[in-house]
């Protein structure tokens, strides 16, 4: 009997080079622990990344790893999955890598539903290039490239994913391994493109950007952890989300005998894209941050379909010598 795997089995001998206190450390630890928990085989596991702080991730994982070029990791991973659909592929990207330079590829890997886990570390800033505003930065973000504040409207990563027809959309927080790990396990089990937005704290250039809902003290009030088939409750069950039929939007209500009965609280249906849409677009102010699996609606994965529809399911059944002679061939004597 082999002794059980631990997070250490998935660590490499490489010195980790993120800034002290960076949220990436927590995510790395959580992923290593998660893979140990599910007894993943490092030889069948591949981490593919683009460019940016998050994209250093593969160097620190004892598995196969490919640190590629800026924004294009989804395309490399797609080619890899075509070549070997048996691999367990993890894509590591960030808000700049995945949604700016690589937005096109992220769109296509999601709509194709290529079987992999896509972890997008969102810190709303370009870290590795020293702090410029990113496509997820909120309007007014002051940065070296926007000294008087950014003016463009940010993209909501999960809304992008849903718009791209992603079939699995989830959210987690870097330092909250307790809730992030089950999300990663669910993503890994999902056959298709599983998109996970991870709020990640950039300690140097965008410190505590998410403190509003990440702070442990107030987390019960500011976070809602979704579970399929369960009412959308938070604040220790004292508050919940109710569907307003008039506005077709979710509203925060008090739950209890003298308030809204729990039966009237909206029940999470992770297979319903309309529900995912409402959750993803909840306003930041006055609402809890929806976390966990927001949407899960399986469909055939691209890599399965690719080989199913291949004329010979990938087998070499013909010979080139015969193929050369197809059509009209004539002889000279």
């Amino acid at each position, binding site marked *: 009997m082999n002794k059980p795997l631990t997070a250490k089995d998935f660590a490499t001998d490489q010195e980790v080079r993120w800034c002290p206190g960076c949220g990436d450390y927590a995510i790395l630890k959580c992923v290593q622990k998660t893979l140990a928990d599910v007894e993943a085989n490092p030889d069948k596991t591949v981490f593919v990344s683009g460019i940016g702080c998050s994209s250093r991730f593969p160097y620190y994982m004892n598995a196969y*790893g490919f640190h590629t*070029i800026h924004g294009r990791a989804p395309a490399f*991973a797609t080619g890899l999955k075509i070549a070997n659909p048996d691999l367990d592929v993890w894509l590591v990207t960030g808000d700049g890598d995945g949604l700016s330079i690589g937005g096109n590829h992220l769109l296509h890997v999601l709509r194709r539903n290529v079987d992999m886990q896509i972890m997008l570390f969102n810190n709303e800033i370009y870290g590795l290039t020293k702090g410029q505003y990113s496509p997820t930065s909120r309007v007014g973000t002051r940065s070296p490239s926007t000294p008087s504040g950014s003016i463009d409207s940010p993209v909501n990563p999960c809304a992008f994913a849903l718009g791209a027809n992603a079939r699995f959309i989830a959210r987690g927080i870097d330092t909250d391994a307790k809730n992030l790990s089950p999300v990663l396990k669910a993503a890994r089990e999902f056959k298709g493109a599983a998109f996970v937005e991870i709020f990640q704290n950039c300690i140097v250039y965008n410190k505590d950007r998410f403190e509003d809902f990440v702070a442990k003290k107030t987390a019960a009030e500011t976070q809602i952890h979704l579970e399929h088939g369960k009412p959308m409750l938070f604040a220790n069950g004292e508050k919940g989300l109710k569907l307003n039929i008039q506005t077709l939007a979710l509203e925060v209500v008090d739950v209890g005998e003298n308030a809204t009965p729990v039966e009237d609280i909206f029940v999470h249906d992770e297979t319903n894209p309309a529900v995912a849409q409402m959750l993803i677009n909840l306003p930041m102010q006055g609402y809890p941050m929806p976390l966990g699996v927001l949407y899960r609606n399986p469909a055939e994965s691209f890599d399965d379909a690719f080989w199913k529809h*291949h004329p010979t399911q990938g087998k070499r059944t013909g010979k*080139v010598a015969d193929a050369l002679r197809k059509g009209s061939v004539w002889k*000279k004597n």
Partner: protein
Amino acid sequence: MVVRFAGDSGDGVQLLGAQFAESTALAGADFSTFPDFPAEIRAPVGTTFGVSAFQINLGARRISTAGDQPDVLVALNPAALKVNLPLLHKGALILLNTDAFNDRNFAKAHIAADPRKTGELDDYQVIEIAISTQTLEAVKPHGLSKSDAEQCKNFWALGAVLWMFGRDRDPIVQWAQKKFAKKSPEILAGNLAALDAGHAYAETAELSAEIPQFAIGEAPMEKGEYRSITGAEAISLGLAAAGELADREIVFCGYPITPASSILHYLSKMGDLGVATFQAEDEIAACCAAIGASYGGKIGVTSSSGPGIALKTEAIGLGMATELPLVIVNSQRGGPSTGLPTKTEQSDLYQAVYGRNADSPLPVLAASSPGDCFDAAIEATRVAIRHMTPIFLLTDGYIANAAGPWALPDMDDYEPIEVNASPATVEDGDDPSLALKKAIWKRDEKSYGRPWVAPGMEGLAHRIGGLEKDIETGDISYDPANHQAMGELRAKKVASVADFIADQTVEQGPEKGPLVVVGWGSTHGAIWRAVNQANEQGMEVAQVHLRWLNPLPKNLKALLSNYDRILLPEMNFGQCATLLRDRLELDVVQLNKVSGQPFKIAEVLDAIRENYPGAKQAAE
């Protein structure tokens, strides 16, 4: 004998030409074709920019190009006549579709007066036939709409031309039955009726005295099996053959672009030969996916034309840095920028040899004819796998689309492509992790290729990437001496290809003499015939045609130094000339043509005369 068909881009001229070529092949003559079409799918009817043409050179001797000047022109409308008339030599035969010669079409083609009445056709033999009327009459019993019926006129013209060359209609009938039977029995019947009618008209019409017949005998070709093939098809079959020889699947990742798309189309039908194709979301993704496939242990191939190759550049650099095999096919077209998508050029040589950030050498080779694309694709794949490197295979719009007879190779003549997939054991004391890293990056002493280790292989998990790596362990390294060593390694690797390739040979002419014509790629045919003629005319001229552009064959400098003068015709402003000056420090006389059209034999021959010592005076 050179025949050119021309009409509107919707007239089916390409089909007409291709079927005439097929018939030529079956008759045993040698031939070479040149489809010359506009970038617009259906340009406005009757305009000069909408003219599509197909030229074929056929003969009972070796045919090396699609021919300089047509002897016969079939013009289906006034615009086609206007555009193509300047190409003809005096006395050429012109078949006109008189139904299209009306004021409306003159206006569309900006023709002031009916050219049949202005005397501008006096120097040619003109045969006027109401092809549209004749076609409509012939297909009437088959109940086609007027527009469908008119569409049959290419078959009518084909019938007439087949008669002129004494050809059998049966193979065309069989082909049409296959092509149209499922689509529409009426259209099939209409086309066949038009084919027969054209044939019968040419044979029996009162005009028949005017329609000449030509007897083209069989060309002397070596014994064997032949078929007609285009460059795009030959590249596709060559890639499939390379996969077979390496016993690995080909994963071809492409994005639609003219004139490279046909490779994607052909390979999409070769699934049974161990080929899978993926149409990516853009050129960059196509290249990245191909590298991803190579990383996964299959043979990744991507293909494009100049603008698309430009987009792939960064990913190609990563392929080089991570030492993965990748075949990049560039079907060159007229540039810069969008340029002339359907026209040919050889102007991406700098891009292939020099065109990446940093010191990043890659092997580059070029195919010289449609049939040669097959061998070139095999060789490119072999080198990519042996040296573990991306490689450029250059072809161009001309050979991608042109067709010629091709002697079918015997697959048993090709050596298997060896794959080094398992790292040799490296002992490194008590540190198995270090030993593994060293084993993964232990390169072959001659080719500098590393073992092709793919994810999924047991016990070999490791990390690769675009950051500079330690030459021994593959770990990220910013060490100055290591970077220098890695740069030298990358250069040595590409240089080492020269140790494996054949010595350069002189294709024809003397081994030593006053003049050698050096070419590369698709100019081969025009140069071959021009040098051949020059020698027939008493000039001692040699021909050297390069397959390898980077590295150059080791003996090339010594070989070229045997000639007093080097003439280099190419379809760009001197890119290969630069390369020879740069790498071999040779003095080169340039002959540059950048018109989107392939070289004419006469153009090369004129340049030979100009550069041949004393020849000019002797001729005068």
